[in-house]
């Protein structure tokens, strides 16, 4: 398994180099790099956040065909972000200062999502299907609310908001890139201890409790971590719905193990490969005419259907 990981790391490096240096005109070396490196770093970070978050999430809810985005975490983030602008106005420090705005988004996202989803899990008696269905409906609710706010909003404030809502890799929020790296790093350290418990948690609630794990507390903490990681990724590049589904399942198929250290690493590496290759295709073949999220939602949706057919005996 270690060799598999090494192979993947090498692949990431190769694709990364291709992305960075392909068709480079050395006359404009510095200029090109100043464009490509932030994008590249953003891709790595997004793959890291979404890959880890989705895999952890799937283990917590014991279902491998879902992503946190199906629960409306993306649209919740967009709603929070819009609401901050809507209620505080574009002149407030939380809008003008990108770091403050980012931190406020993160705090709100973390607390609301944890509260909301742990409540959902409790009410439904950990019935995942109902949690999911409620979540998808909530996604509509959030985006309808957000859309309504956008329509009521002062056009000037909307302008200021728009640039941060429809980010993509071509328009990376590079001001917060470094900051996002720090946040992701701190989060990783904080949640590292809980991650080690994931192997035990995947055995099921009773088994985990027998093994001496405070199940409810750990899952709640992990859920908080998932929400925060999703928030970081969304803040950087905007919502990418199906990425997590693709990479987490690829990793599960490829490694075919229950050891989460390998699964998470695999998921992250797959995320990097998918994003880099996708971005190369978008830039070179389609000359930026189609955003990468569209590709990912078509591929991801198709892959989901495939997973359903393959797993149909277990559904």
């Amino acid at each position, binding site marked *: 398994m270690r060799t598999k990981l090494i192979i993947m790391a090498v692949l990431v490096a190769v694709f990364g180099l291709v992305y960075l240096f392909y068709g480079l005109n050395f006359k404009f070396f510095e200029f090109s790099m100043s464009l490509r490196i932030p994008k590249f770093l953003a891709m790595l970070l997004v793959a890291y956040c979404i890959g880890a978050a989705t895999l952890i999430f799937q283990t917590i809810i014991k279902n491998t065909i879902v992503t946190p985005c*199906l629960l409306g975490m993306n649209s919740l983030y967009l709603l929070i972000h819009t609401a901050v602008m809507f209620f505080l106005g574009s002149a407030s420090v939380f809008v003008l200062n990108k770091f403050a705005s980012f931190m406020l988004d993160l705090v709100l996202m973390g607390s609301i999502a944890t509260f909301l989803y742990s409540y959902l899990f409790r*009410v*439904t008696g950990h*019935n995942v*299907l*109902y949690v*999911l*269905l*409620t979540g*998808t*409906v*909530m996604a*509509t*609710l959030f*985006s*309808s*609310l957000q*859309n*309504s706010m956008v*329509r*009521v909003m002062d056009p000037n404030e909307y302008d200021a908001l728009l640039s941060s809502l429809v980010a993509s890799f071509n328009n990376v929020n590079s001001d917060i890139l470094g900051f996002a790296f720090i946040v992701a790093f701190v989060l990783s350290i904080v949640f590292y201890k809980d991650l080690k418990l994931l192997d035990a948690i995947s055995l099921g609630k009773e088994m985990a409790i027998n093994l001496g794990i405070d199940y409810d507390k750990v899952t709640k903490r992990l859920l908080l971590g998932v929400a925060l990681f999703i928030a970081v990724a969304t803040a950087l590049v905007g919502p990418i*719905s*199906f990425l997590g589904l693709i990479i987490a399942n690829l990793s599960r198929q490829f490694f075919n193990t229950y050891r989460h250290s390998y699964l998470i690493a695999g998921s992250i590496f797959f995320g990097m490969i998918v994003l880099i290759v996708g971005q190369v295709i978008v830039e070179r073949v389609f000359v930026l*005419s*189609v*955003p990468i999220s*569209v*590709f990912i*939602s*078509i591929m991801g*949706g*198709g892959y*989901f*259907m495939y997973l*359903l*057919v393959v797993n*149909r005996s277990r*559904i």
Partner: protein
Amino acid sequence: MRSTAILATLLLVFSSISLFIGVIELDITNLFSKEGLEILFISRFPRLLAIILSGVALSVAGLIMQQLVQNNFVSPTTGGTISSAQLGILIALIFIPDSSIYGRAIFAFIVAMIGTWIYVGFIQAIKFKDSVMVALVGIMFGYVIGGITSYLAFRYGLVQTLSTWLTGSFSLIIKGRYEILYITLPLVVVAFLFANYFNIVGLGKEFSKNLGVPYSVVLFLGMSLAAMLTASVVVVVGAISYIGLIVPNLIKMFKGDNLKGTLVDTALFGALFVLVCDILGRLIMAPYELPIDLIAGVLGSLVFIALIFIKLKKGDKKVVAFVKGCGGFIKVKNEN
């Protein structure tokens, strides 16, 4: 019958309210002037008719779909029908750029039907144990079709045009732009005539064979009917989510599963729901208006979440008790 009468009265009341809401003041004094009549017949009446017809069409479509596959979570939104209809419109725009609304409608009909058939075939092939899964698959299926739609839109530079069909709104409805919705009336009548067949098919393949009902033909017909109803709304108004899901479920809670008994009520309540949402959308930030899709999205998803919780507690009885309790509460309040 009493519920039908109540719903019809409410619909009438709200319809007359709706006629008097708008940027240009219209009241009894200037109603019969030349200008007043013009506004009434060019803008207000068409809008009202469009609202009622789309409410009827979407909720009846949802009811038929739910009855045919015996699953209360299926609807035009959660069955990929709306997104297929949007794809159809987009294809029409790409291949026949100067197509009339009728040309677009035909494309929307065809693609919506194909999409719905694929979805039904898919869920029948997999035979999910849990009814919720059926809805989730439908939502995912809608995402995939939506992805294809936005790919084509980006490719052919039609993203802005597309956004019209992504958010349903009645604000552009005037005389001459909604008449295609009349097609829903004969379709609803057909649905009513076939109601008993749909009931039987809903009971399963074996059952309907025993009763001599051609299962596949009726299923095929019913789904096509639902798809056409949906597509005609999407062509004129745009997407309105959740009506087809929530309205039939609410009516079923009170009136049971027999399609013939619920069809008229569902149609009336659907029209009422859309009408109320539209009035709200026009009043909240008058003189501007919020699109119906947003209001229906907020209201509809809240109602739907409530429905899920009720189903979780296995208590249709509880709903009745709750409603009665509210009634009692109101009475007590009045006496005070």
